[in-house]
Structures are given as structure tokens and as C-alpha cells.
């Protein structure tokens, strides 16, 4: 009978991070992944012989600095590249690019508006400040106010005191950032439409919010996640892993084994073994049972509880609460193998910012319309298109002279109001997106050697994300922090003893790649009498 200290179900970035932290803390941990490759949504593949690319995500994902150093990932083969932050193309032939270098960024902004070039300094400062205070908050343990314990009450009183000494203008800035709409917030800095569109499109990509939705401004600070900030005074870099997100997953897998943990792929967990209301292990699809003192799930909340447990074993009312957790697919993925580098005549030759990807920006009104179409489950008419050509900076991904293009299309509904996502609908959708790109890049269509289109239902069935939701639960204010995934479960614990949630459905979710895994590992290690040491929160 196989037995470990801990079992992690699912090898997404959070599950891998959790297992790696546990292994490093000396816990005998086994990670079980259903697919052949690790990475789940971060997995990559050969779209065409010799063409490798991330299959489900755009491909710019990185890990926070402290995770990389804690887990010694460079030692396990992980290398990151920093490139300039992307280009927005507008239908009328305008473009706007982000540069890491402060002077280049200023020159770029001055092309649109001198005032905006000045406003940039203020915007950048405010976003960095907000980002730092968010990092601080994430480094604190999350107290759940609905848990009625003396410690929690004390912590709350402490929070009240901290709030009371904050200067009101600072609180006001914070409230504005967390409650205002993205469009309105940008208006208080910039005057040029393309500058606003550029920032809004990047901030809102992949979220379930539109530019005019209250509380959408906070996504702007995500553009400035502290780790990617260069010292140059310009825009944050885009960070790409050499070999794509798959390489991040592989390095984490290597780290787990390097620290003495175990990884099993092509093994699907079908049940959590319960005894006396506590998790004792897992049962695999082939009937094998593996036992452990702690079981962690890297599956989203719904999949975890609705699929791994008989509902009758869950507390009364819990299944309904899980059912109310909002998960919505919003992003489709189109993968392209290209015979050569597409040309974008509007952008100067060799513009370095192209390496950071490009977006087809649109006026706020139109973006809001795309968002409203998504909300009413309309087939996409003017979706938000984001593309990355990772082979521009990582030559290992495609044969010489050829390229891969990773296209993420946002505001794509999981369910259409007038029928299913049939193949012909997917073909129409692919044509629409390729047509939009071709409008900016003459001859683009003829470069395509192979395509693959994955709409949210495909992502659900391939990756296992409910509704194809990459955030594993909408990142709305009522599903964040101590409410994630729901009040009472903010500490990675669940109503089932010894059973923990380490997927993005838990805090901090999409706020930090691998953050949930690291947090859950700390919680589980403590339960097992070990200690996870992390540089999280240590000065950057």
C-alpha cells in the first residue's frame, strides 16, 4: 500500500508550486497529474512538427521572484527573458507601444500627447505604490472575519486601528482604484484615447469586467506587478520563460523531484478516500488507492467538490454554496504555425516592443459593447484580440525563419444564447479573428501553416477548468481575499478534515501566479508539523 505525507491532485502551476514547497520543507509529497505533461493550463505542445507553443494561455506568464528563488528554479533549468511591453494597433493606422526605457516611453507618449507623457510618471508611481501595498497584504496571513475566534477578533481590531491611522487622501486613492471603472480611472490621468485604450485592453484582457464596470480600475495595477518592474521608468517588461510556460511547469516538476518529492503523470484521481469525515488518500481511475495524511486539490472549487466527493458526504448546504461560486469562461485560444514573420506596416521595422505581443485595441465604447455581448452570450462580433509571437525572442520554438503565434481572444462566452459552439461556428470565429489580424498585416492569412481553435467549452474539457474559467472563479471583489472561495474557507481549509484547496479558486487566486500553491503549502506544512520558509514579503 502506497503511502505519503501529502498528495497533490493536479499539476497546474499552483499544484506544482504547492508540491515543490512541501517537498523542500521535507514533506514526502506525491503530485498526481491526469495528463501526460505537467502544467495543466500552462501546458505547451507541438502544433505542427517543429512548432512548439503554449496551447491554452497566451504565454507571458511568469512566477513571482520569491517563488523562483525559494524553489531554486534556475537550478532546475528555468530561464526568463524580459522584453518590451507590447504594441496596440488601432483600426485607423495608429499604434502605441510600451517600452521599459523611461526616455523611450516618454518619447512614445509625447507622440500622442505631451500632457500624457507627464501624466505617465504620476500613473506609474501610483500603480507601483498600489502594487507594493497589495504585495504587503498578500504576504500577511488572511484572517477570516466570519471565523469567530478571539485571534480573528483581535486581528480585525488591529485592522481597524491600521485603517484609522491611514491618511484620508491615501484611503481615497485606494478606494478609487478598487471601486472605480477602468475607463473613468484612466480619464483622471490621460487625455489621448489610444494611450487609454492601450492600457485598458491589456488590463482587462481575460477578466470578466468591461471598461465601464465599477471596480475594473484595479486591474491596471496588475500591469505593474512589482517583479517585472525595471528601473528604467518606462512600462513594465513582458516576461517570457525560455521554452514557454511548459518550461515553468517542467522546472517546478524537476524541483519537486529534486527536493525528494514524487510526480506521477497520466494518473487520474477519481475519488478522495474518506474515513470518519476526514480525507485519507485518493483513488485513481485504475482502482489504485494511495494514502496520505493530507490531500491538496489543485482543481477548481466546483470540480473539486462536485466531482471528487459523493455529495452526501459533504456538509448540509455546502454543495449549494459551491454551486453559487461564480465561474465564467471569457477567453478563447487560437494557435497558429506561421511560415514567416508577419509584417505590421504601421509599426516601424524592428520595433522591439512587438516581442511583448500586440493587441488590436478599440475605443472604450466598442470594448464595452464586446463585454456586453459576452454578458448576453452573443457570438463574438468584436472580441478583444491579443497575440504573442514568442518565437521572435525564443528561437527554440519554431524552425529557422518560421514562427508560432499565440492568440488569446477575450469576451468569448462559454455558452451561446442561440445554440452550441459547433465546428462551423468555431470556423466562423477563427475566420473573424484571422480576418481582424489580416486587416493590420497584409498577407497574414497566407502565412498560416496550421491552426487550432479552443473556445471555453474546449478548455473545460481539455484542461478541466469549469466553464473554461482560467481564473478558477471570477475575481470579483466578493470572491477575493477572505471571501475566496467563500467565507469560512479562506485559509485553504475545507469542511473535510485533512483536505485542502490549493488551486486558483482559493486566495490569492489570479492575483499571483502560484500564490495559492505557496499559501496552501504553508498551511499544510504547519498541519504536518513542518515549516515552509519563503522569501515572500521580503524586500524586493
Amino acid at each position, binding site marked *: 500500500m502506497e503511502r505519503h505525507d501529502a498528495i497533490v491532485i493536479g499539476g497546474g502551476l499552483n499544484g506544482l508550486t504547492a508540491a515543490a514547497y512541501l517537498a523542500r520543507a521535507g514533506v514526502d509529497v506525491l503530485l498526481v497529474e491526469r495528463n501526460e505533461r505537467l502544467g495543466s493550463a500552462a501546458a505547451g505542445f507541438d502544433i505542427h512538427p517543429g512548432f512548439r507553443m503554449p496551447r491554452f494561455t497566451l504565454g507571458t506568464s511568469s512566477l513571482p521572484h520569491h517563488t523562483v528563488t525559494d524553489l531554486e528554479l534556475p537550478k532546475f533549468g528555468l530561464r526568463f527573458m524580459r522584453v518590451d511591453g507590447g504594441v496596440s494597433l488601432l483600426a485607423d493606422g495608429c499604434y502605441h507601444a510600451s517600452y521599459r526605457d523611461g526616455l523611450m516611453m516618454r518619447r512614445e507618449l509625447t507622440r500622442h500627447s505631451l500632457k500624457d507623457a507627464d501624466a505617465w510618471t504620476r500613473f506609474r508611481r501610483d500603480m507601483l505604490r498600489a502594487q507594493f501595498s497589495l504585495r504587503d497584504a498578500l504576504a500577511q496571513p488572511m484572517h477570516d472575519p466570519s471565523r469567530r475566534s478571539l485571534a480573528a477578533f483581535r486581528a480585525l481590531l488591529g485592522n481597524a486601528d491600521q485603517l*484609522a491611522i491611514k491618511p*484620508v487622501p491615501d484611503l481615497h486613492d485606494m478606494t478609487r482604484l478598487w*471601486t472605480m471603472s477602468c475607463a473613468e480611472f484612466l480619464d*483622471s490621468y490621460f487625455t489621448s484615447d489610444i494611450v487609454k485604450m492601450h492600457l485598458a485592453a491589456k488590463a482587462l484582457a481575460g477578466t470578466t469586467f468591461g471598461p465601464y*464596470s*465599477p471596480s475594473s480600475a484595479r486591474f491596471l495595477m496588475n500591469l505593474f506587478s512589482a517583479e517585472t518592474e525595471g528601473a528604467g521608468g518606462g512600462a513594465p517588461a513582458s516576461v517570457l520563460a525560455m521554452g514557454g510556460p511548459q518550461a515553468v511547469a517542467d522546472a517546478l516538476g524537476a524541483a519537486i523531484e529534486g527536493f525528494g518529492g514524487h510526480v506521477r503523470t497520466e494518473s487520474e484521481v477519481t475519488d478522495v478516500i474518506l474515513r470518519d469525515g476526514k480525507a485519507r488518500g485518493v483513488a485513481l481511475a485504475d482502482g489504485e488507492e494511495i494514502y496520505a495524511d493530507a490531500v491538496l486539490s489543485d482543481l477548481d472549487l466546483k470540480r473539486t467538490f462536485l466531482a471528487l466527493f459523493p455529495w452526501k458526504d459533504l456538509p448540509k448546504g455546502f454543495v449549494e454554496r459551491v454551486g453559487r461560486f461564480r465561474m465564467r469562461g471569457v477567453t478563447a485560444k487560437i494557435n497558429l504555425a506561421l511560415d514567416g514573420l508577419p509584417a505590421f506596416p504601421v509599426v516601424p521595422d524592428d520595433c522591439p516592443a512587438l516581442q511583448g505581443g500586440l493587441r488590436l485595441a478599440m475605443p472604450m465604447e466598442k470594448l464595452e459593447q464586446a463585454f456586453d455581448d459576452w454578458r448576453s452570450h452573443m457570438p463574438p462580433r468584436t472580441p478583444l484580440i491579443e497575440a504573442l509571437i514568442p518565437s521572435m525572442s525564443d528561437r527554440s520554438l519554431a524552425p529557422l525563419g518560421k514562427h508560432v503565434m499565440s492568440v488569446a481572444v477575450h469576451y468569448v462566452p462559454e455558452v451561446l444564447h442561440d445554440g452550441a459552439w459547433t465546428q462551423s461556428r468555431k470556423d466562423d470565429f477563427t475566420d473573424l479573428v484571422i480576418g481582424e489580424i489580416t486587416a493590420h498585416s497584409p498577407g497574414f492569412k497566407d502565412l498560416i501553416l496550421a491552426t487550432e481553435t479552443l473556445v471555453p467549452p474546449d478548455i473545460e474539457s481539455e484542461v478541466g477548468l469549469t466553464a473554461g474559467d482560467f481564473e478558477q472563479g471570477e475575481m*470579483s*471583489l466578493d470572491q477575493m481575499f477572505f*471571501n475566496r472561495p467563500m467565507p469560512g474557507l479562506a485559509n485553504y481549509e475545507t469542511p473535510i478534515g485533512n483536505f485542502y484547496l490549493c488551486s486558483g479558486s482559493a486566495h490569492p487566486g489570479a492575483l499571483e501566479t502560484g500564490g495559492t500553491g505557496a499559501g496552501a503549502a504553508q498551511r499544510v506544512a504547519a498541519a504536518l508539523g513542518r515549516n515552509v520558509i519563503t522569501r515572500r514579503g521580503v524586500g524586493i
Partner: protein
Amino acid sequence: MIHSDHQFDAIVIGAGHNGLIAAAYLGKAGKRVLLLEAATRLGGALTTAEVSPDYRVSTGAHLLDALPRRIEKDLKLAKHGLRFAARQLQTIALDRDHNHIVLALGRGNLDILRRHSAADADAFAAYLARMKSYSAVLGPLLRDALPDIEPETMSRRLRRLVWRAQRLGGETLESLMRQLPGSIGDLLNDTFETPLIKGALALDALMGSGEGPYSAGTALTSIARQSLRSISKGPHSIEGGLGGFTDALAASAASYGVVIRAATDVKRILVSDGHVYGIETQTNEIYEAPFVLSSAHPRETMLDLVGAKYLDAGLVKQLNEITDTGTTAKLNLSLDGLPTIQGLAPQEYGARILVAPSLVALDDAYTAFKHGGIASDIPMEVTMPSVIDAPLVPSGQHVMSIVMQYVPYEIKGGWEQGRDRLVDRAIETLSAYAPDLRQRIVAGELMLPPDIENKFGLVNGGWYHGDMRLDQLLSFRPAPALARYATPVKGLYLCGAGSHPGGGICGLPGEYAARLVLSEGARA
């Protein structure tokens, strides 16, 4: 000491209800007060006028829903003619199939609700109790005067909030934590299953705001609204329309010696050495006083009347960023008889009637509004005040007062063409419940957001002198440096809806500002 007739203890700018209340409180304390109003009549958006000859109705706002009894008593409003046509009006949600829901507890009401859904009938009492306990926790924070700026006082206030929250008990606290940051739509979806009750409760929460049922933060703003309303256990209907309320306030103020001048537009507030000393009117008359209170929009007060040169650049920016979203239009109709609403009992015609069949309909209307369009189903709040206040109209006749929600300030193609379409849509929406409405109409008047702006001086036609959103509430209302009624100009105070606790005919900004001026005056 002999006063010239151009010298006062205090000058109040604007005779809306907040200005009147501030002036009355100051007068009551023995101050010589001058109250100036630019329009020819007092009351701001609270007036009664004729829709057509002999048919009178509240022109703008039509219900009084958050005025504390304390103000009523302090200012002896009953003595000065305030009469309620009905206190605590029932709110009724109209149903297409004539099973109209009364939004209140009571066996008969629950029986009707049970016809829609037994589960909802059971959930309703719990929902009301829950909302009540939420507003018990947050209410004091939202409606009491703001504590001073000292961290100790703030801290004490917040600690008390934590304590109140802890006493709620596990489950209520849990749902409060979960639902507070979310949307009213999600909150209602978690509670009820009948589309009608969700639609009606959401409209009740969103009336006058520029946000949709699924906008983040609307759960909180609806609790804020509820806790303001719970002060007066409203809504109430006033005899003679809301002009009757204005008249009583004016009579009360006059009884305390307040000098009221209508049709007197203030051109600027006079400042010397950082201290206010009076005002100058458009006709170049100068009135002097050591205290000036303005119930005008904070931006207008500080930038137009005082001038940006007296303010620091950050404050000017904040004032310029105050948002006002016009979201409502008002339609007043003269009717030659009572329209028949099937399924409505005779005594229910005087109620406050909500037309909002579902969250979906509300959300569609919001989406249309966002993109400068008009929904096919217009959410609305309807009253027929003549049912309970017969002298408003000739015998046997009636007036209908309709507030339409989600009507944009600007519409695609322009209001020139859109006006008739909007009226038509509104009447069509209502005709689904009252098929004979169209035949009853004798005359009507429509006020679009731009009309509301012109007529009542409300920016963009928004009701509140600054939207009631989290970033414009409490210590942020109207801007951090102006949150306690005082301004950087010594002796100048804000006393309008743009100040804490905000709009919604509660009169509290006027009262709190007046009390502050009195205590400062006593100290000086």
C-alpha cells in the same frame, strides 16, 4: 448692535431642502440669516406645479423617504403646515399576471408571494431581517455625522463597527462579508427565485444611481440607502406634493427670522485673507456675513463662486472629478380618470408602484442606457398622489407621477427625436398593466436629464450633487479635504447633498453643517 439690511450673521446659498434646513436651524439658534435662491421658487427639486391647468403634481421628486423625525420636530414642520397624505406608503411590484407583490411582511402579502414561489415567501422575512441587521451595523457609520479627523476617534468608531459586526453572529456576518462587496443582483439571486421580486427589490436599490444590477458595489450602496431610509421609516407622501414640504420648511425658517430672497443669483463668494466675508449677487449687490453656507454643488461653490485661485491644485482636480450621472426622467400625466390596473385593490392605487419585471429586464435597460439607448421595458416608480390627496386635481380627475430609471443624459440620434419615443415606450410599458391608460391621458410633461439639469440645477440631471458611490461617500464626500462641511476658506461651509451623508432628501447635510457653524460661532 444695529444691523444694516446688508449685514447678517450667516448667509445660506440655495434654498433647496438642505439650504432651507440649514437656514432654519441657524435662525432657530437666534442668528440673523439670509437665504438666497437663484430660481424664482424655493425648494430645488422639491416643488409642486401644474402639469396642465388645475392638475397639480410634484414636479421632480415625489416622495419623502429619509427625513429624520428629529428635523420634523426641531423645526416644528407640522405647525408650519406639513401634512402627510400618507405615512409609510406600501410598495407594490406590478405583475404581468396580476399577482402584484406587496414588498412588506404581513400574512396577506406573503400569501400572494407564495403564489409566485413558496420558497421566496419563506425567504422574504429572513431577507428583510438580514438587510435590517446589515443596516444596523453600517447605518451609524453612514448616517451619523463624521467623527473628527483624529486617529483616536476614527479608531474608536471603527472598533465599534467591528464590535457591532461581531455581535451579528456567524451566519449573518458571513453573508454580510460575502455580499457587501458584490452586486445587488448576485445578492438577490442568492436569496430569491421569482424574477419579479428580484427585479423590484433591485430597482428599489438602484433608483437614481448610474449602476446596473450586476455592478460591483451595488449591494453596499443599497444597504447605505436602506439605512438612510430606515431613519424615517419612509416613503411618505406629502399633502400638496413635495412643494408642501418646501412650503413648511420656508414657513419654519421665516418664523425664525430668516430672510429669504428668491430670484437672487449669487455671482461670487467674497474672500479676504483666506476668510469669507460675504457674497455678491449677479446684480452686484453685496451682503456681508462672517459665515457663508452653500448648498450648491461643491464644484460650483468652490470653483465658480470662490475661485480656483484660493484652492490647491489637488483639490481643484478632485472637484473636477466628482461624477454626476443623470439616470432618470420624470413623466407627469394628467388623467381624466383612474386607469384600471387589473389585480390592484382600490386602496392600493395610492401606493408606491414599481415596474421592474425581472433582473434581466433591469440589466437590459442598464445596458441600453450605457450605450445611449432606451430600453423596450422601462423600469419605473409610479405614484398617483391624487388618490390619497384629492385637492391636487379637479374632482374625479387624477395625476400620475412616473420616475423612469436608466434614461441617459444624451441619447444616440439626439433627444429631439428621442423624446416622443421615450414617452411612447413608457406608456406602452405601463399599458401592459393598465390597458386603458392611454385613453385617460389629458396632458403630460416630460423632464429628461438635461431638463432636470436646467430646471433644478442638478449637474447632468443626477440627483445627489455627486453620485452616491463608495469613492464619493463618507470622508471622501465631496473630497477628503471638504468632508466635514468646512472648506479651506475660513467661514465657508458646504451644506448640500454633495456633503456627507449625501442625497436622498434626508436633510442631514443641512442640519449637520448648521450645527457645526453654530459650535464654531460659539467658539469664536
